[in-house]
Every structure is written in structure tokens, then in C-alpha cells.
């Protein structure tokens, strides 16, 4: 138990106390008008809350490491995960807000007027959120593993218990102000070390402006070592893989059930528009910093760590080697650690860099607290998406419509515990790096929900048979491609498992459109409801005519 352990643990506990304090304070204050209070939150703060929900262990812990190891090819994650907000804010969020259903299975079930579609959508929600949560658990394993200097597997088990408690006792999720606090902690924890590294290496306090020079310098170092330059495009995959991955991440963002739910707390279509804009601004702060983080980390490793004597490696190497995520081996036996002899996992770059750069106890502890905030806030949201899909959409709406509130709540709690334990089991031996696991969740969302939602909102002719065919074909094609590419070595144009969504989406759009056209059109009422989504709340579409509600009365 060294000082670092105590400092990190105290910062983590202090931030947890802050979140719980805010949750209790708000709950006591606003139980009676919970919904009104929730909707009264200004878009700017709602944007921060969306940011906390959105930025997961993959963004916080995994992304900079992925960019560091993949170079330019890792930037597909940056553009994909931010560009998705264009699709979401233009094509879906305001329209879904007007429709007035907020869980994805509920929208699909009611828009297409089909219980079958509702159940399939609920099952897809569970599969997507489950895959995503494996990434979160393996991320919390890295943080906890380092904190207690134990194997990341044991860390994952502790994370499972934490997350199951956190989500099952719920309440946290609905309270936007807790997430605003989580966002603030998370972004400070991410940006502070980048600024310090920038000062240390370039003397410039603005990393976003200063790291361009470092990227250029690393290109020279790489040429000297005879490896491909850091910024050279498409060295780790084809150009088509880059494009497919970027598309998959964008469309998946627009189709992720737990993100769409966030637009529940906005009041109108206009507020949805503004919340989307503020959310991307706040998310962008982290995404603009991640490539800088990656560049500084790599530069420090190349210039300060590589080339030092194997017997004189600094203390941080030992604690990271213990987690099983770092390997230093003097394979050519010359007593010096070469760049090629240092094998670092994507997932520890963000956590390890503050130690490598010697940024001090406080910054290292802060980064651990930020990583926990990112993993917990997103895992909480995912578990709630899973439990509402199972307890509400499948159990209550389809299986047992007469069940009591109490039964439903206990079904919801048990589904959270079961899902967390199962995800934890898989996370013990994660089938990929955090960003890769999360990319599969996005591929599945791209292949299933993105086509179903876009056609549901923008094409009134799409019907229940069409959406059922689309969801099943999209899910099947995406899953088949992920497995064939990962385990069978099958690829098209060099597109690997993470880019699978592009095939799923094309197949699902085609299936939905063809089957819809071959079967009867949906009822006039449904078609009118879809046309109605073109206009703001005050305008109503009915029987080919548009009415304006100028006295603000609620009945239409």
C-alpha cells in the first residue's frame, strides 16, 4: 500500500461521494415534479449529461491507446464517434422526440404496430448493450487492476460487483445532475495530463496546437527505425476498412438504444437540436484531445523509455507488468530496451502515461477517478437499457401484461444482475481490445436499429413485415460477418470484423424496402403519424392537410 494507492483511492471515493450526494440532494428536492424538473434542464447541461453517458471506458481508456498503436488508422474512431451525432441530430432525435416514445423497442413496436417487431427490437437492444458492457467491464478491470496492483482479471471481478450494485440500485441514472458532475470530473481528468505533457515536451500549454510538431518529429524517428511513419495512412488495414469502420461507428451512434433514450430529458424538437449540438461540443473536447494524448505518449515512450537499460527501468513498469497488459523483454539480450521490445496494450496507454511522464500522485489519481466515472456512468446506462428491454418491453408488454409494478421491478433488478455477471464472465478473457469490443456493439446497432429507425421516421410506406425482415437480416449478416472475419479470416475488400456494420446496414435497408413493397401498406393512421414527424410540434398532419395549433392546447 504505497502513497499512490492511497491518493488514487481517496480521489475515487471522493468523486463517488460527490455523485451520490448530488443524487440524494436532487431526489429529495424534486420527487413530486420529477418529470417537469427533468425536462426543464437547459440544453447546455443536458449536453454534458449526454456526454457522460456517451463517453465510456472505450473513449476514455481505450481510444488514445488505439490511436497510438494504429497511427492514422485509429482516427476512424475519432471521426466515426463524433460524426454519428450529425446522423442522430438531423435524422432521428427531434423526430423521435415528437413521436413521444423513447425506448427504441417501444418506438419500433408502436410505429410498425407489431409485437413481433417489438420483441425482436428488445432482443437486439439486449445483444447490443450486452456486447458494449463487456468493453466497460474490461475497462474497469484495467483501472482496478492497476489500483490494487493485481491481475486485470481480478480487477474485472471487482468491477462486476460495483457495476451490478450501481445499476441495480438505480435512481442514479435518471438524475441528470449526477451525470453533469461525472462529465466535469471525466473531462478534467482527461485534459489535465495532456496539458502537462504538452508543457513538458513542447513548453506550450495548448496541446491541440502543439502536438502537430511532435507528430512530424515521430515520422522522422520512425523512418530512422525503418518502420512505417506514425501518420502514414492505411498501414494497419485497407482504405475500405477505414471507411467501413468510420461508417459503422457513425451509424451505430445514431442507433444505440441507450444514447437515443437520452433525448427523453429534452422538452421539444428544438431542444433536441440544441442538446445534440452541445453534446458534441462537450464530447469533442475529449475527442480532440485523444490524438494529442496518443502522440505525447508515443513520443515519451520512444524517446525516454526505449533506449534505456533493461535493469534501470522506472518503477511504473513493474506495476503495469503485474496487470498482464505490458511486456518488456530484452529479446536480443543486449541489455537495452528497444522500441520493438516494448509491447504495450491499447487499454493501458491512458492509465499508464501519467506515470510514465511522471506527472505526480494527484494527476495519476485523477485519471483513475475519471476512468471509473466513464466506465460506471456508461455501464449504468447500458444495464438500464437491458433491464428495460427485458422487464418492460418483453416481460410486461408481451408476456405478462397483468404483472404488478413490484414484480416488474424485481424482474428488472434480476435482469441487471444476470446481465452484469454474464458480461463479467466474458470480460475475464476479453475477446478483443476495449475499442474493438465496443466497435462490435456499434456494428450490431448499425445493422439493426439504424435502418429500422431511419426508414421508420422517413419512409411511411415501410411496414411491419419490412422491419421484421430488416432487423433479422441485418442482425444475421452483421453477426455472421463479425464471426467470419474474426475467426474464419474471411474479408471483403480487407474489411475486418469492426467494419461489419456496413454490410449489415446495406442488407437490412434492402430487406426492409423489398419486403415492405411486396406486402400491404401500413394503415392510414400510421402513415399520417410518420408524415407528422416532418413538422414541429405546433403543426399537425392529418388526412393530407396540415393544421397549426396556435393556442397551445394539448388535444389535437
Amino acid at each position, binding site marked *: 500500500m504505497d502513497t499512490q494507492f492511497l491518493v488514487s483511492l481517496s480521489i475515487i471515493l471522493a468523486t463517488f461521494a460527490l455523485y451520490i450526494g448530488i443524487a440524494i440532494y436532487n431526489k429529495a428536492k424534486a420527487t413530486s415534479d420529477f418529470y417537469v424538473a427533468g425536462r426543464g434542464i437547459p440544453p447546455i447541461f443536458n449536453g454534458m449529461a449526454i456526454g457522460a453517458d456517451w463517453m465510456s471506458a472505450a473513449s476514455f481508456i481505450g481510444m488514445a491507446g488505439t490511436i497510438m498503436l494504429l497511427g*492514422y488508422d485509429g*482516427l476512424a474512431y475519432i471521426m466515426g464517434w463524433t*460524426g454519428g451525432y450529425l446522423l442522430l441530430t438531423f435524422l432521428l432525435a427531434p423526430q423521435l422526440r415528437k413521436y413521444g416514445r423513447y425506448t427504441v423497442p417501444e418506438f419500433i413496436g408502436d410505429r410498425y404496430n407489431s409485437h413481433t417487431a417489438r420483441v425482436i427490437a428488445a432482443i437486439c437492444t439486449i445483444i447490443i448493450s450486452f456486447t458494449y458492457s463487456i468493453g466497460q467491464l474490461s475497462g474497469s478491470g484495467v483501472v482496478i487492476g492497476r489500483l490494487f496492483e493485481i491481475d486485470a482479471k481480478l480487477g474485472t471481478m471487482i468491477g462486476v460487483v460495483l457495476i451490478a450494485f450501481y445499476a441495480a440500485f438505480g435512481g442514479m441514472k435518471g438524475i441528470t445532475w449526477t451525470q453533469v458532475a461525472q462529465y466535469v470530473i471525466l473531462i478534467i481528468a482527461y485534459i489535465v495530463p495532456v496539458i502537462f505533457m504538452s508543457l513538458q515536451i513542447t513548453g506550450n500549454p495548448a496541446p491541440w496546437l502543439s502536438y502537430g*510538431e511532435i*507528430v512530424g518529429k515521430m515520422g522522422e524517428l520512425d523512418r530512422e527505425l525503418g518502420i512505417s511513419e506514425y501518420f502514414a495512412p492505411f498501414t494497419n488495414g485497407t482504405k475500405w476498412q477505414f*471507411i467501413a469502420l468510420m461508417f459503422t461507428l457513425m451509424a451505430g451512434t445514431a442507433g444505440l438504444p441507450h444514447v437515443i433514450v437520452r433525448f427523453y430529458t429534452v422538452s421539444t424538437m428544438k431542444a433536441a*437540436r440544441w442538446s445534440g449540438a452541445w453534446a458534441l461540443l462537450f464530447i469533442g473536447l475529449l475527442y480532440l484531445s485523444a490524438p494529442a494524448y496518443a502522440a505525447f505518449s508515443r513520443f515519451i515512450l520512444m524517446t525516454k523509455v526505449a533506449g534505456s537499460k533493461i535493469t534501470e527501468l522506472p518503477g511504473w513498469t513493474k506495476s503495469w507488468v503485474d496487470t498482464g497488459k505490458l511486456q518488456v523483454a530484452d529479446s536480443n539480450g543486449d541489455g537495452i530496451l528497444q522500441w520493438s521490445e516494448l509491447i504495450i496494450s491499447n487499454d493501458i496507454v491512458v492509465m499508464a502515461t501519467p506515470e510514465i511522464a511522471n506527472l505526480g500522485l494527484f494527476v495519476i489519481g485523477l485519471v483513475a477517478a475519471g476512468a471509473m466515472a466513464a466506465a460506471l456512468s456508461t455501464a449504468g446506462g447500458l444495464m438500464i437499457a437491458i433491464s428495460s428491454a427485458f422487464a418492460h418491453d418483453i416481460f410486461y408488454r408481451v408476456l405478462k401484461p397483468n404483472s404488478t409494478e413490484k414484480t416488474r421491478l424485481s424482474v428488472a433488478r434480476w435482469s441487471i444482475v444476470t446481465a452484469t455477471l454474464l458480461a463479467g464472465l466474458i470480460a475475464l478473457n476479453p475477446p478483443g481490445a476495449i475499442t474493438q469490443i465496443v466497435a462490435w456493439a456499434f456494428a450490431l446497432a448499425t445493422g439493426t436499429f439504424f435502418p429500422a429507425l431511419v426508414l421508420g421516421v422517413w419512409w411511411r410506406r415501410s411496414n411491419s413485415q419490412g422491419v421484421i425482415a430488416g432487423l433479422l437480416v441485418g442482425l444475421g449478416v452483421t453477426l455472421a460477418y463479425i464471426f467470419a472475419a474474426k475467426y474464419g479470416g474471411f474479408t471483403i475488400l480487407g474489411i475486418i470484423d469492426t467494419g461489419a456494420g456496413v454490410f449489415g446496414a446495406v442488407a437490412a435497408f434492402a430487406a426492409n424496402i423489398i419486403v415492405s413493397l411486396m406486402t400491404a401498406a401500413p394503415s392510414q393512421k400510421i402513415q399520417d403519424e410518420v408524415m407528422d414527424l416532418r413538422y414541429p410540434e405546433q*403543426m399537425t398532419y392529418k388526412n393530407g392537410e396540415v*393544421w397549426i395549433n396556435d393556442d397551445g*392546447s394539448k388535444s389535437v
Partner: protein
Amino acid sequence: MKKIDKKVADRYFREKTRNMIIYFAVGFLASFGVVLFAEPLSGITINGFPFHYFMGAQGAVLTFIILLFVNAKLGDAIDRKYGIDEEKNKQISSGKVLDH
């Protein structure tokens, strides 16, 4: 409640759709467009970065953020032009939520 000319309503939808198509085109060029021509563009240097790297790491993200704020601002302007009152939208939509 009063009926409005279908042509006016259609114009509202067309204006918003036209803007959306422009935003998508700009966003597409900044991301997919630059990726497609990454190799020829890498010769240009901006602030120390090769151009394709700059766009991937910063340019595209900044473009997306600007587009979303332009959309929010212009969307408000279009609403005003067609006499849409946000306060009334709030009243109407707070009654339209499916509670359960």
C-alpha cells in the same frame, strides 16, 4: 387549431431538408472525402500536421461541431419564419408523452 396551406407546410419541410442535405454534404467531404484522397493530400502541411492527419484528428470534428450549431441556429430561424412559437411547442409536447 387552424388549417394552413399545404404548400406553406411543404415549403417548411423542403427548406429544412435542403439545409440538412447541405450539412451532410459538407460533413461527408470533411470526413469520407479526405479519407478517400488521404495519400495525395498528405503532402500539404498544416500547423505541423500532414493535412489528412489534421482533418482526421481535428478538422472533421470541428466541422461537425460547427454544422450542428449552424443547424440549431438556422432551424430556430426557419421556425420563426413560419410563426412557430417554442413556448407552445413545449405545452403541446409535454402532453404527448406516453407515461408508464
